[in-house]
């Protein structure tokens, strides 16, 4: 969750009281996620302290500025890095400060290091968070609890998130994932005998809201065709089910960590084969 789902698809304009207000689509997801963070924190204290989220954001921005300058020779737009940083700030849970800095920097660096044919493979914050969960489980956990007891914050986030993803032309990815998750939840319930409500319970939590709207929809780390985007996200949900049947707590994060890059590699390989046949450089 760091590459904005909303890549430039035109600059939307709003007609307000006879004046035109324009807002670049790239800034809508950062604004949305910032709103979630601020409201969540003031209403429910989801962050133990501001310093952790601030550290994660600053580290992501600085890393993006430096690496962008070195490897692309320009100062990059920071919207995506901001989403990476704030996502780390929300999703990582640790009493220590260093995991926030490390996770943010690793997330951004993964975009520059883990590249094939000019494309990076992992969703940056998915990569950073999974690495920290693998390597530092004694210090780091991911957000698995809910914010608040009420249904309305949940509905507001789902509705707003859906609108934003729809404008970014990625709603099919989110919808496919949610439907797949629900279907597999019933399959899991049937297999394990656990109450079906306990199986759908995780998707009512905030981690999934961020996962559904920002991680699986990342344009830079999803395949290109709409059909295959849906198929890949269905496979992510399937892999998640397998992991859940093996009692893996962070199943969705790990499922995306495994399936996402694999799909990207296959697409890159197929593209290069096609290019080789036609003699056109992809």
């Amino acid at each position, binding site marked *: 969750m760091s590459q904005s789902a909303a890549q430039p698809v035109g600059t939307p304009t709003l007609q307000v009281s006879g004046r035109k207000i324009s807002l670049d689509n790239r800034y809508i997801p950062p604004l949305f996620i910032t709103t979630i963070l601020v409201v969540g924190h003031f209403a429910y204290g989801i*962050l133990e302290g501001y310093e952790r989220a601030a550290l994660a954001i600053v580290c992501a921005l600085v890393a993006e500025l430096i690496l962008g300058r070195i490897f692309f020779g320009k100062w990059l737009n920071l919207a995506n890095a901001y989403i990476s940083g704030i996502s780390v700030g929300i999703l990582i849970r640790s009493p220590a400060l260093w995991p926030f800095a490390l996770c943010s920097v690793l997330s951004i660096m993964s975009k520059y290091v883990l590249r094939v044919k000019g494309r990076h493979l992992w969703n940056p914050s998915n990569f950073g968070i999974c690495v920290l969960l693998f390597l530092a489980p004694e210090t780091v956990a991911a957000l698995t609890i809910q914010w608040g007891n009420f249904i309305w914050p949940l509905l507001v986030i789902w509705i707003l998130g859906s609108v934003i993803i729809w404008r970014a032309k990625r709603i099919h990815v989110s919808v496919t994932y949610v439907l797949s998750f629900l279907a597999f939840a019933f399959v899991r319930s049937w297999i394990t005998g656990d109450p079906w409500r306990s199986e759908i*319970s995780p998707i009512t939590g905030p981690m999934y809201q961020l996962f559904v709207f920002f991680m699986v929809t990342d344009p830079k780390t999803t395949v290109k065709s709409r059909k295959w985007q849906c198929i890949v996200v269905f496979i992510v949900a399937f892999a998640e089910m397998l992991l859940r049947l093996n009692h893996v707590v962070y199943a969705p994060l790990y499922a995306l960590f495994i399936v996402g890059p694999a799909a990207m590699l296959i697409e890159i390989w197929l593209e290069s084969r096609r290019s080789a046949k036609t003699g056109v450089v992809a």
Partner: protein
Amino acid sequence: MSGRKVARIVLVLVFIALLAVPLVMKQLASRRERANSALDATAALNRYGFHLDEVARASAINFIHQAPTLDHRLDHIMPQVASMGAAVSVVDFNRDGWADLYVTNSGEGSKNALYKNNADGTFKDVAAEMGVADLNQVGTGVSMGTVWGDYDNDGYEDLFLYKWGKPELFHNDAGQKFSRVSDKAGLPAWVNANTAVWFDYDRDGLLDLFLGGYYAEDVDLWHLKNTKMMPESFEYAKNGGRKYLFRNLGDGSFEEVSQKVGIDTRRWALAATVADLRGTGYQDLFIANDYGISELFFNDGKQFREVGKQTGVGFSPKSGMNASVGDILNDGRYSIYVSNISEEGVLIQGNNLWVPREGTRGDLLKYDNLARAMDVEMGAWSFGAQFGDLNNDGTLDLYLVNGYISADRNMNYWYDFSKIAGGNSTIISDAAHWPAMDGRSLSGYQQKRVWLNDGAGKFVNVAQAVGARDVFDGRAVALVDLWNRGVLDVVVANQKGPLLIYKNNVTPENNWVSFELEGAASNRSAIGAEVRLFWDGRQQVQHVSGGSGFCSQNQRRLHFGVGKNPRIEKVEIRWPSGKIETIKKPVFGQLHQIKESA
């Protein structure tokens, strides 16, 4: 080689180096843990100044806690719901100068125990003959804990028993018998309580009583109306039990005044303690809540104000399970320790050590959580904790017990727990939606923490080294000088496990002094009295507590370690009545029994 290529190689190397950072941090942490490898008694004494020997059986104590069996609709998660009730409190019920122990049981029909100290290294359970054993009868609920306080100022400590069920008050008849006086006292018919504290909130010389509900009081866990009795949220639950403040009217009866004085909360209280945090003479009330934020009520004598957010202790929701206070920095101020849950790879809440912020005081008092900075943060699934100077070196150490459900060692319930804990209130609040535990453990078989205060702002865990090596599901811990040797022994009550007695052997090089107070104008138990000891240019404050930790109460006697060759300057006693007495150069190495001057 182009500059871009060099940059890429450097980038890859830095990336690999950063990936190694967590492993380096782990290595550094394991170096710190090396201090905690098992040592023999002599080596532990030499290195840390004390060693613990578990002597329950040798002391003729063979108590095993039993858990209740609740409504059959909770069968699938019974170990989780019926997971509390092991408690211990310290009292000298017959005023013979030797500390006795009261231990609760929680199986239906099981017996509580009152271990009378025989003054020869052994104890005898006299609960049955004293009339305080058979208190878990079917239909009355089961015991969760006790606190002792002399509510009628007759010189003998009386017993308040809180339960998931009918709370009971027993009058101590001169150490010969206990008489049930719950009806006269006006106690409620049913409270699902896990904490209670005696304190004189209005300083009228009579002990009042705070009682904190966990499950809502209309829930009978043996006869559920429905299964929607679980918390509505893992971190924001407000559907727990109500709170009670019983004002002592002085005639054996109490008036319930919680709403009137501003204590109105339905969070899931698991531990409460009181201390005069602002130096006003009135004791403030701290409540550690499960499934939510902690609450701090400033006491203005007649009214309480909730100031959790304002002071910083009540913002981030966790799973509070302990509240104990101690002057850990020897600066005459109390820090507050709250235990929470940490499980590797799943949930890292970390325990909280709320230390008063430098330069803040009075109503502007603020706290910072320094648990990480002082290395007392990671206690696994933590429950009871107590501050006390275990090696008499002049600084307060911290003993923490932990472990939730030790069942099948090879299977754990954490995945299912995390699945449901993240759900919306409609899902989490109904026990029927919770997956079956099927004999699995949930943070079981955990190693305890004995954190030694180095006096310079750090604690080091020496539990294994000094002999605290049990892995039972610890709940309550109490510190007490069981054999009048000038040391703090440790008593641990374990859920579905044995009562443990850790006899403390302390290096004789370190000195001590202790104080036993008796109020006159103040309540006779002297609960709330503060003793401030000045020695070697240092000072430490302690207070007589009417309940602290988790379901426990330490000895009333105040024990100070003072290190090697101490030069004790003075002792200042501030009684709850407001009187201040000073003793110049008290002799160390002995107990001082002090009565408040009339």
